[in-house]
């Protein structure tokens, strides 16, 4: 890397990081939180004995996973105005990403719930709990442990996918890099820098995952 390249790298570093801190991270965190709520609902619907409910959940999951996220963003931001719903970029982005996470995480949560031994449900019932209480007090805490690694993967994918939010006018890490690249015409260098910064974010997130796992593992033998 020559001197001017190095200078560009240094000059761009904090702006790109700031794009991550002010755009990528809040967008990813809020969409993920909301997405988990949706996912839990969808997973429960999918597990329900009610055919309509579980069919609807299957359909939802299939559409979310079978279509490109970009189109999902476009539909919410550019398509909804056709039916009179005009949302700002941030709400649009959060809705689109939450719905997307909802579809992917639903299958993870469903698998995690199914992975809790049936005996745990029965132990809940035999001490007099109903289904809802057993789910909340007995099953979900155990499912949480199982689902942390795959959910972390979903989250890490989400962090990178939020770069698509720039398509609907949200400024985040990748958009900042594109701006810098467009003005400096140094696409390769700036994108590599962006990749490095994504990677740093992911390393931090992974270590967070490690801590969470250790916390949830306190009650199992290692």
């Amino acid at each position, binding site marked *: 890397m020559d001197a001017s390249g190095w200078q560009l790298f240094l000059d761009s570093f904090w702006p790109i990081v700031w794009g991550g801190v002010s755009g990528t991270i809040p967008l990813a965190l809020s969409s993920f939180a909301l997405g988990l709520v949706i996912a839990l609902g969808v997973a429960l619907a999918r597990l329900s004995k009610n055919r309509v409910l579980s069919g609807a959940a299957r359909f939802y999951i299939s559409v979310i996973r079978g279509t490109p996220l970009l189109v999902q963003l476009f539909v919410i931001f*550019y398509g909804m105005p056709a039916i009179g719903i005009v949302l700002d970029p941030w709400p649009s982005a959060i809705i689109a990403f939450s719905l997307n996470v909802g579809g992917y995480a639903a299958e993870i949560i469903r698998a995690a719930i199914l992975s809790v031994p049936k005996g745990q449900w029965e132990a809940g019932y035999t001490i007099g709990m109903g289904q809802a209480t057993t789910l909340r007090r007995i099953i979900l805490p155990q499912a949480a442990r199982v689902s942390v690694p795959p959910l972390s993967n979903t989250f890490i994918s989400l962090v990178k996918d939020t770069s698509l939010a720039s*398509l609907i006018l949200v400024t985040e890490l990748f958009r900042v890099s594109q*701006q810098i*690249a*467009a003005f400096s015409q140094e696409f390769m260098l700036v994108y590599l820098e962006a990749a490095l910064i994504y990677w740093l974010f992911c390393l931090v997130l992974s270590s967070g995952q490690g801590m969470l796992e250790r916390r949830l593992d306190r009650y199992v033998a290692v």
Partner: protein
Amino acid sequence: SSSAPESGDAAAGDDYGLAKAGTLTVATEGTYRPFSYHDEGSGDLVGYDVEIAEAVAEELGLEIEFQETQWDAIFAGLEAGRADVIANQVSINPEREEKYLFSSPYTVSPSVVVVAEGDTSISSFDDLAGKTTAQSLTSNFYQLAVDAGANVEAVEGWAQAVALLEQGRVDATVNDELTYLDYVKENPDAGLEVVAETDPTQSALAFAKDRTALVKAVDEALETLRADGTLAEIGEKYFGADVSE
């Protein structure tokens, strides 16, 4: 390595350092109507810039091959030596002149401020101050809008900018007059109007810094094409006017 001439060939382009011997490799978006796009969407690659490039290649006695990709990748491809030239309405500005060589311009057209019909609050570039415009990041127009003091929302292209304008989510968009004209020709009821225009901007073919010989040859070819009326003819075909000067 990439310039190894093929022995049987008339050695056309020997000194140009072409990516592929005997062939002019042209990078273009392929999704930028009316300059570089596919006929009927999925047909042949056509457009003003495409035909100019084809004419230049023919003049130089070279085969032509297009590489279609997004704007970000176009310049990367040029720098990686994968393409010899960009034909995609690259406007000449000082930052780019520092990094690339340019041919003589083959498009001269003003940039225009487009607003929704009936919006009287904007009538000049200066009125953009404090307003919101939608621009694609990679264009010169982005800079124009920023310079005018507008809040710029970056979009992927003209279609999205128009959608935002029509949905009332931005106040204006700045673009090439030619793009605007092409759009209203297809969509007469779009409800858009031009309220201001700049001095004309020049667009040219862009080359890597070390391709002086190629640029020189291309300039000569453009001169010939200009002189024999080919440029004007292509302009007539796409815009009903010669836009090369």
